[in-house]
């Protein structure tokens, strides 16, 4: 009797396991996307925003039946903005969580560490915020992709093109933070702008120590420089807010035109209310001006993001959303989760984004995400200053494939 009931229990269990096995198989093992970002600390608003962007895409895809009958899953890990922690989390995701793809990072240093690891492990790594152009130029390899803008358009080329399309100022004075990104920014701006506008000149280059918060002496100098426009080379965050306040008090925005690229980023300006100083009328750039994008999908995405987090989406959120869809399309095209074949599918792929089709270039695996420019102003829709009358800049604002080839040649050590 005892053995009989024992057999019965075992067989029931066995059936249960088999059924469950079938059941699980029916739903399919999830395809896993590892997402490493800054979830705590100063940059956490970006990390959370990107994670949410990815989750929104995954919910949509899973609700429609997943990819090849399998659901997608995103696993997010915190890198604390530190390369060694980002690398550790990437290894954890690959070894323990068995993720199929790596995505993420805001810090270029973290991205570089993960990129090296992805190359060794032959895993695809897609960057969604980190800007350093070296990731896809000098240090490029087969397994890194970037669906995001990079530092070339953001700091130098996009503002140069924007100015060349609009005011074409001839006498420009620049102010930058005195460190490498500041210098690179001005160099890139000059490289693009000066050939486009004959007779244009940088009449003065001012450099403030990093973390300067009192720009009074720079502003009086700019005011008396007889330039007709000023260009802020990499003055951002708190420095930019302080500069704007002081320039406003000195009437600088009434006296000359302003090119203040970072002023299009909602993140810095969302604390500024109507009536307070802002970069009045300045040309600025933005990487996701959701208020100006008419695609209903973008409107829906923006709303979902705002409902979940209580703040507006960063450009990284849109990028992660596009990344998830890019992977879905590539996997469906290939018909399997096969890294090498997916890379071939991604190279040259036309991404269907909120902002039209965007191509992933083969030469640097960089998606030609647009940069928008416009004029900073207040509108009735939002309580903080934004760029208005926006226009998008495309592939023009990136290094060309020929330029990148030259950069890579110069960077490779010469064989003896």
């Amino acid at each position, binding site marked *: 009797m005892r053995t009989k009931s024992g057999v019965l229990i075992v067989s029931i269990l066995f059936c249960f396991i088999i059924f469950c096995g079938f059941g699980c198989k029916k739903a399919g093992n999830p395809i896993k996307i590892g997402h490493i970002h800054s979830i705590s600390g100063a940059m956490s608003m970006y990390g959370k925003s990107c994670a949410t962007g990815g989750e929104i895409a995954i919910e949509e895809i899973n609700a429609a039946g997943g990819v090849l009958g399998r659901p997608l899953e995103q696993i997010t890990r915190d890198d604390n903005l530190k390369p060694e922690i980002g690398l550790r989390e990437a290894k954890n995701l690959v070894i323990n969580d068995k993720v199929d793809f790596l995505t993420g990072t805001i810090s270029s240093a973290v991205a570089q560490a993960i990129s090296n690891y992805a190359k060794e492990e032959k895993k695809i790594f897609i960057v969604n915020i980190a800007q350093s152009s070296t990731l896809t130029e000098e240090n490029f390899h087969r397994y890194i992709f970037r669906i995001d803008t990079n530092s070339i358009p953001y700091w130098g080329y996009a503002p140069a093109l924007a100015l060349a399309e609009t005011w074409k100022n001839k006498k420009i004075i620049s102010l930058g933070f005195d460190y490498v990104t500041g210098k690179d920014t001005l160099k890139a701006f000059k490289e693009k702008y000066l050939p486009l506008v004959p007779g244009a000149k940088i009449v003065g280059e001012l450099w403030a120590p990093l973390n300067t918060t009192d720009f*009074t002496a720079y502003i009086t100098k700019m005011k008396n420089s007889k330039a007709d426009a000023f260009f802020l080379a990499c003055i951002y965050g708190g420095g930019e807010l302080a500069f704007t306040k002081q320039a406003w008090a000195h009437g600088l925005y009434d006296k000359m035109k302003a090119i203040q690229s970072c002023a299009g980023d909602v993140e810095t300006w969302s604390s500024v209310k109507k009536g307070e100083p802002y970069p009045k009328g300045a040309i600025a750039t933005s990487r996701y001006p959701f208020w100006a994008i008419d695609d209903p999908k973008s409107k829906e995405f923006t709303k979902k993001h705002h409902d979940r987090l209580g703040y507006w989406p960063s450009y990284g959120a849109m990028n992660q959303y596009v990344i998830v869809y890019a992977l879905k399309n590539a996997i469906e095209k290939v018909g399997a989760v096969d890294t090498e074949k997916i890379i071939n599918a991604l190279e040259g792929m036309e991404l269907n984004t909120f902002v039209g089709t965007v191509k992933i270039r083969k030469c640097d695996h960089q998606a030609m995400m647009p940069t928008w420019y416009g004029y900073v102003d207040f509108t009735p829709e939002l309580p903080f200053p934004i760029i208005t009358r926006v226009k998008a800049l495309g592939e023009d604002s990136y290094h060309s494939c020929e330029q990148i080839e030259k950069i890579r040649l110069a960077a490779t050590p010469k064989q003896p």
Partner: protein
Amino acid sequence: MDIEAIMGQVLSGLSVGMVLFLIASGLSVIFGTLKILNLAHGTIYMIGGFLCYWITSTFAHIPAIFWLALILGPIATALLGGLIEIFLLRRIYAEEMLYQYILTFGLILILGELCKLIWGVGYHTVSVPWPVDGKMSIFGMIYPVYNIFLICCGVAVFIGLMAVMRFTGLGRIIRAVTFNREMANALGINVPMVYTGVFMLGCWLAGLAGTLMPPMSVVALGTDMAVIIDCFIIVVIGGMGSLSGAFIGAIILGLVNAFGISLLPKLTIAFGFLLMIIILIIRHWGLLGKPE
């Protein structure tokens, strides 16, 4: 350079210099009497800024709240200074200099993290208060009234401090303690209390500067490090512990920076240090310091 450009740089130099003097005065007063180089002085200044933001934003409905913040903010930092002196600094007066540096450096980290916990990592701004919010015309140039107001504050603080030191009984006691601690003690002066009081005065000055800054700048973490190096330069140029020295040092540094920016912008980052090196070579005890 035409006259307008020169006057522009002079005014800006004075404005930048006076803001720095407001901070450096406290550093100088503390060093003069306690012989403590308070590395965390900039952090006290930053806390003043956060308090200004916190008071003005929490009680935004009260008219002229900024002026109330200007009274309350410095008092709060002075009380904080009192706690630091009584519970921490008193234990290390007899120890080597190294201990002060470690202690006050530790305070930078601890107080900075506290600010982060309380006020977060975002940027905050404070509007320019009435009636100093307009623009005025000086030498045919539009200039913000608030900068002129800051210059006046710097001069007023200098005159006020000098008057207290010279003409009041309190000033006499402080000078006596500064001159000879043992003798003052023997004469019945409560030296520890004078030390606490002077440290609180120094922190009050830092808090005053911190509260005055937000309307023209930004309240954020890291603003302490942006000013503290310049303040050290001022105190060294002027002569350690000499208030008039710090005043003159601040004006010189402000002007050298302003004209440096105008004439040799590539070297901006170096002017303060060059100035300090030159003065240390010529008079290594500072402009108004006393050779030891």
